[in-house]
């Protein structure tokens, strides 16, 4: 990075983009309240804040997806009105979203071509893709089918699509949440290169270490207002975090591993053929999780974690019954409801559309996951199975209070909650049952720091109370913070878990990349 050193202090001239007094009101909520901020040319600028702090609203206004009620934007010191994302692109603003919008069945070049007019020949796009990918150190084959690409590579497609427009400001929303440490490093190199060309980057992230490493300026938002602007390199991760949440965050309190000898989850040579062209087959997965411990499964997205979740939860049923044993019950051939009845609890990766039905209320979503396990309380009328609304409502209230779920109405639809609050609800819904075994996939994906700490602490406390917890996560910090033992998933195979104390990030990184040592299929099943 020696060559980039000279750019670390951007020339304080006219800012590239300056927002003045931006106010955006949704009904009664002020999502943005008189927000002022400026991005200099050739600067990587961090936008920090908890979920619901107003970052997304601000970015959507800058990118033209939303219109501000008050205030304006200066671009190169000239006032501009951005009415739509296409106008933003014409100005020179590009954006890479957290959730990709790519067609899996099309090639890289075809996906990129979709954002251009039909007259542009595919040949030109392929060539430019190749040029840009070498220029910015983003290796990418224009003819590869997107469905075959890793998440990191898919992100490159989005970035190159954005660079095609030759933007002067690039907005990145949580770009590293899906990347391995190595992939993230590659991305950072690219960002430095873009900065050195004089482009500006607006970088939205929860990961404070990254922000400190990358950014030379930061704007911190809380409750819709800008509460601070600082140079993150002069701060500590702790001081940044406390500016974000307005108070010192509680550290997760870990205790000595409370693992006992009692095996709660046992997987015996679990095999699952892939069900569709983009799925990963599970191959000879062996694992045991004991009462009192948290086992963490690290791995890059798309290496079979979703499939493993399905196989353990019973959403997908295994061919041989003894492949999955929960609390002494052979359940490999039983469905998810049966597995819940013997004390299994499951929290999938996607909150909306998998863990919860967006348009249904919280109490309905309570019933969604617990109608079988809590049928005595939640149903009446015998085989008519009449839903006992009052019992469900009081259970919902209990969870809302226990997990500090913040909501706007008494019983709002799931989609009305912010990501962090819905996640607290979806996790709390299972904890409230005091499950024997909890499987959770990406417990704090896209969740603000306060909620993430709360959820991680809840997982540790559950294990301490004698349950077994299996946590799948792509966030290494989280794995090291919460897990007693760590296993790594790569290409549908699972390494044997090792005590966290014996694991290093480098070793996990190697296992993630599919390094064959220790990713064996033998596995003891004692």
């Amino acid at each position, binding site marked *: 990075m020696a060559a980039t050193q000279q750019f670390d202090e951007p020339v304080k001239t006219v800012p590239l983009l300056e927002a003045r007094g931006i106010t955006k009101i949704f009904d009664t909520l002020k999502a943005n309240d008189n927000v002022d901020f400026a991005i200099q040319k050739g600067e990587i600028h961090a936008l920090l804040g908890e979920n619901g702090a107003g970052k997304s609203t601000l970015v959507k206004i800058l990118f033209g997806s939303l219109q501000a009620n008050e205030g304006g934007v200066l671009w190169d010191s000239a006032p501009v009105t951005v009415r739509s994302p296409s106008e933003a692109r014409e100005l020179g603003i590009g954006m890479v979203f957290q959730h990709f919008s790519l067609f899996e069945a099309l090639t890289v070049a075809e996906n990129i071509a979709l954002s251009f007019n039909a007259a542009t020949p595919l040949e030109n796009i392929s060539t430019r893709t190749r040029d840009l990918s070498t220029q910015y150190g983003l290796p990418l084959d224009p003819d590869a089918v997107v469905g075959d690409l890793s998440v990191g590579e898919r992100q490159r497609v989005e970035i190159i699509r954005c660079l095609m427009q030759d933007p002067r400001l690039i907005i990145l929303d949580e770009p590293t949440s899906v990347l391995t440490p190595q992939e993230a490093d590659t991305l950072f190199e690219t960002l430095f290169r873009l900065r050195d060309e004089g482009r500006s980057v607006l970088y939205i992230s929860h990961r404070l270490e990254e922000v400190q490493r990358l950014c030379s300026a930061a704007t911190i938002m809380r409750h819709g207002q800008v509460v601070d602007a600082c140079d993150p390199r002069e701060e500590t991760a702790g001081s940044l975090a406390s500016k974000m949440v307005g108070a010192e965050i509680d550290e997760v309190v870990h205790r000595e591993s409370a693992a006992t000898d009692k095996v709660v989850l046992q997987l015996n040579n679990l095999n699952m053929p892939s069900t569709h062209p983009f799925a990963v087959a599970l191959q000879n997965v062996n694992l045991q999780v004991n009462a009192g411990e948290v086992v963490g499964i690290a791995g890059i997205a798309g290496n079979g974690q979703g499939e493993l979740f399905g196989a353990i*939860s019973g959403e997908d049923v295994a061919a041989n019954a003894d492949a999955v044993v929960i609390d002494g019950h052979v359940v490999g051939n039983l469905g998810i409801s049966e597995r819940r009845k013997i004390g299994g609890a499951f929290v999938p990766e996607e909150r909306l559309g*998998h*863990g919860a*039905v967006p348009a249904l209320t919280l109490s309905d979503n309570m019933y969604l996951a617990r109608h079988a396990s809590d049928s005595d309380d939640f*149903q009446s009328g015998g085989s008519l199975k*009449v839903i006992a609304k009052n019992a469900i409502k009081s259970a919902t209230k209990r969870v809302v209070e226990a997990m500090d779920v913040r909501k706007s109405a008494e019983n709002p639809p799931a989609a009305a909650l912010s990501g962090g609050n819905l996640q607290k609800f979806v996790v709390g819904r299972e904890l409230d049952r005091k499950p024997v075994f909890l499987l959770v996939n990406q417990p704090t994906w896209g969740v603000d720091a306060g909620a993430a700490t709360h959820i991680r602490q809840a997982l540790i406390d559950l294990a301490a109370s004698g349950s077994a917890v299996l946590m799948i996560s792509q966030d290494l910090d989280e794995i090291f913070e919460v897990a007693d033992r760590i296993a790594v998933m790569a290409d549908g195979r699972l390494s044997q878990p090792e005590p966290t104390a014996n694991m290093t990030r480098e070793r996990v990184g190697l296992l993630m990349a599919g390094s064959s040592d220790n990713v064996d299929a033998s596995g003891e099943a004692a």
Partner: protein
Amino acid sequence: MRLELQKRAGASTLFSILSPFIALVLTLVAGAIMFVILGKPPFASLYSYFIEPLFLKFDMGPIFSDFSFEGIVPNGWSLEQILVKATPLALIAVGLAVCFRSGNWNIGAEGQYLIGGMFGAMIPVLFNDWNSPLTLPLVLIMGMLGGALYGFIPAILKSRFGTNEILTSLMLVYVAQQLVDWIVRGPWRDPKGMGFPGTKSFNESAVLPSLWQHADAHYGAVIAVVAAIAVWFMLAKTSKGFEITVLGQSPRAGRFAGFSAKNMTVFAFLFSGAMAGLAGISEVSGSVEKLDDKLSLGYGFTAIIVAFLGRLNPLGIVAAALVLALSYIGGEAAQISLGVSDRAARVFQGLLLFFVLACDTLIHYRVRLVAAVEAVA
């Protein structure tokens, strides 16, 4: 420049309730325009379509050949006809509501209705002399069984082989029409029927009784109301109803809840098929009292409109069935008094479905002109 639908942050509750009424008004406006184009006086035409049938005696008999507006007192006979038409519409639409809410698109209710009528007619045709209190219940059950079995075909094709149920269920309608047509001309034709296609008339114990003496309206109407209330209860209060809603809105969350989308497909088609079959046999046994070649009147298709106009709510569907029944009667009346083809009734029904769906869409989405400077906010 292109049009884009953008999801609204929140759907207005008021407009969600008003939506079917707005759709009705828009249908009337479009209908008035249609009459103007046809060269008919729009208001008088609409009057004779939708108001007159409520008051008018349009029996073609010599005693009732008076089409003047003199009778302002609702005419019992016309209202009764509305009831007769509304009965199959409500029965079918209540079944379709369950099916549509679960995310399965049964477009072939007309076929299930016909096969239901045919299956139900089996006992009275083949065992014409069997008189027993059990005959009628068995006839009705056979009707439901026939409809359910016919609905099972697209269901199993979808859940096993992933075929599109819209296409298969629709195509099976034409198969059913030919099958019924053949059976009433061939094997089941009444030898004493003077060559007309149709079976023997059912004996007394196989006939669904009239609501009162000499009435055309039969107990099918009562069955329809009871069924609507029962299905409303199932949808609103029971675990099964919850399962239907969840699988319709989010199959993946349904799977997480332990519900099977494939089993739901089969259930939804069996259920809506059985309801359509019940409508078919009610029509055969209650109105015609024999199976003939005129059973297919498009109720199975009109019921799709009824289901949506009733907001897929069984109680709303009962009201919507009465409205659509009125358009059938109005169509017959207008044919006589205005000289408009009875196809106009189909146009009205089509307009109504269009506006119902459009209103629902616009409540949840706003239309934006993309690339136009003056975007519709």
